[in-house]
């Protein structure tokens, strides 16, 4: 079709000629809207959980199942990882590539230990006979908490992919936007977890 003008590299978007939109700003806005839709997904799951939370159908209740020490540990780990992801962004803004990758590694490790704890907790509950098919309450519990867990896992894979990209390309407008987005996503998951912690666990053990 057309010739590629050789003097334009593919990612120098900041020279504003006619009708040329700042692509990175567009993408950031798109990502924010995506987060809104994700909020609605979690909102719907929370609503479902709230409706079904007492429908234990004679099966085990939250008070019988939940073990708070583990959950509190998970909470601390996730909150810390949110903090370290913030440090990663700060390093990025300073132009410190090593710091950026370093803090991302710390964040990813914390995220991975969160997932490990959560999976062990689930396995233990299943072992005690509390399966997703045991009652409507447990269906809602596993689905809500599990959806959060899947989000964190996807975030981990994505974070690793981004570390590789930063290592290869350094800090450019594109990688900057991508890192900004994942850190937004990570904070968002943190906020969702706080709701999980209060609505599912705190209200559950009461």
């Amino acid at each position, binding site marked *: 079709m*057309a010739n590629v003008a050789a003097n334009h590299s*593919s990612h120098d978007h900041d020279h504003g000629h006619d*009708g040329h939109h700042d692509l990175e700003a*567009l993408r950031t806005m798109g990502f924010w809207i995506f987060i809104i839709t994700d909020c*609605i997904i979690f909102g719907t799951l929370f609503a479902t959980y709230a409706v079904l939370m007492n429908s234990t159908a004679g*099966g085990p209740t939250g008070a019988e199942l939940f073990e708070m020490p583990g959950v509190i540990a998970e909470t601390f780990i996730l909150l810390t990882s949110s903090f370290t992801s913030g440090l990663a962004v700060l390093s990025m803004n300073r132009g410190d590539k090593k710091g950026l990758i370093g803090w991302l590694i710390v964040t990813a490790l914390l995220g991975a230990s969160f997932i490990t704890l959560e999976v062990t907790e689930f396995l233990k509950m299943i072992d005690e006979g509390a399966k*997703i*098919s045991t009652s409507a309450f447990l269906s809602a519990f596993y*689905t809500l908490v599990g959806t959060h867990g899947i989000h964190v896992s996807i975030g981990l894979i994505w974070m690793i992919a*981004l570390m590789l990209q930063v290592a290869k390309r350094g800090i450019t407008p594109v990688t900057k936007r991508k890192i900004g987005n994942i850190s937004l996503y990570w904070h968002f998951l943190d906020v969702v977890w706080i709701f999980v912690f209060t609505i599912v666990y705190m209200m559950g053990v009461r």
Partner: protein
Amino acid sequence: MKITKLSDFFVTGDPLIYGADVAIGLTMVAIVVALTAFKRWGWLWREWLTTVDHKRIGIMYVIASLLMLFRGGVDALLMRTQLALPDSMEFLKPDHYNDIFTTHGVIMILFMAMPLMFGLFNLTVPLQIGARDVAFPLLNSLSFWLFFMGAMLFNVSFVIGGSPEAGWLAYPPLSEKMFSPGVGQDFYIWGIQISGIGSLMTGINFIVTILKMRAPGMKLMKMPMFTWSVLSSCLTIILAFPILTVTLALLFIDRYFGAHFFTLDMGGNPMMYINLIWMWGHPEVYIVVLPAFGIFSEIVATFSKKRLFGYGSMVFALMSISIFSFFTWAHHFFTMGSGANVNAFFAVTTMIIAIPTGVKIFNWLFTMYKGKITFELPMLWTMAFIPCFIVGGMTGVMLSVAPADFQFHNSYFLIAHFHQVLIGGVVFGYFAGLYYWWPKVFGFKLNDKLGKWAFWLWNIGFYVCFMPQYVLGLMGMTRRVSSYSWDTGWWSWNFVSTIGGFLMGIGFLFQVWQILHSIKFMERVKGDPWGGRTLEWSIPSPAPFYNFAITPKVEGRDDWWRRKELAAKGVQDPPPKYEPIHMPKNSGTPIVMSLFWFILGFGFVFDWLWLIVPGAIGIAATMLYHSFNYDTDYYVTVDEIKKTEAKAGRVV
């Protein structure tokens, strides 16, 4: 489901289905042979399957949705044939009738109306706001292919595995494993889920496009009305579709993992599903009708040669409808025991929506008043819409009166009402839009005479088909019955209704003929065949792939009209000064990723791990591939712009 015999996999036992098998097989062979014979595979891949050009994506949406209109229409006529000949011969057996009303409803709403709407978004919005493209061209292509694969997944259920038969909204417990043990319901879940993700992304894409990519000077209150309607529809999409995603996911978890969200036992709550599905379902009908309102606004102004009356109130009406649509969902189950106060609340909110809708209708009428009206096809469809929608709206208000609904509920009165608003509002509206923008997209007008035949057949057919159904509803005929006895006195009304259905079918055939005829004997048009008012008419038809050689500077509402007025006064545009244009490259990622979604969905339907795993890995791999790909755009040189513009007959 465990497949032990081949007949568990291929649906058997019905001549209709063998007919479909043969037809599908022959069509596929014909397509493959034709592409090979004319050496068109490479062309198809390069120019269409991998395109990120919003105009081409729009065309593909339109083609796919017209095919779906055909399938949904055949379903409708099969049902109507059965109802015209009750008991004397069993044309459709009851369970087959269940299959057909379910697939008809799903296809018409999700695989016909939605994609036709997205097609019009794609064909029009970037051109109307003076943009080179949508905000995320690659995502746009992905949205299309997800819709397409979802629709295909849903459609194969007719010949493979078996169709869903729990109604278009799949109420549990009917849709649960216990009462729908086959794979039909799983096809339903995955077909809609996959295409629904595509719809959600289209919503995000067009919101960003409209908010961020308008030509310089186009303030929000200078935007064309269609663009406003798209914005309101997309806002509704991003708020409503996540609810659908979750609802279907929960139903899937029930069926697949034996969970108990909506089952009757173990604490499940079917009513939860009904609330959730209508929190999406009611906004959904506004999602599809709002753009139709935008289309009418454009057409009325253009063909009355006047500016739209009451622009500000139109914007306000669109936005308030998109918000209010979220507070009415419970009117779909007034009879399910929510209590008087709840019913009263939802009855009132429902009636409130009639107000902005009424405002819009008056605005259109005032725009026409004292205008120089020309009755071209788009205008005819608009004029036909107005009375149809008024009657449909009034019967809707009748349904929203909670006590009365105890009488009308689930009767043919309801069927007549929602077809009146869906056909009169959505289908007529999108037809009007297609006729209106057709010359823009293809560079030629559609034949007028054949179009008028189609128009009258559709319109007369519509009233003949649906007016009797109001009567039937009042006589007590309930929906979703495949037969009735002669002593009910329903036969004559049903028979007339069926004749109307077939008239609409013939109308559709006239439209197909009209398109084929016009392709053969077309007469090329220039950029602005209707005397348009908005920016899309300021560039050649069809638009060059980069849309605007020079980004327009907008100064007023109906900016193209303003510029034409200036030109008539002798004010000349300065000679164009071109600059390289930044464009996205074509990509195979969207279609490949969507194929993996299809594989994943098919695997889940049959619970085949050997398909689920590669499907999931494929999706993740294409996603990562995309994340690592930084080579996604290029520049169009000034030379090439000049050549393209000169070919379209422009001064360069």
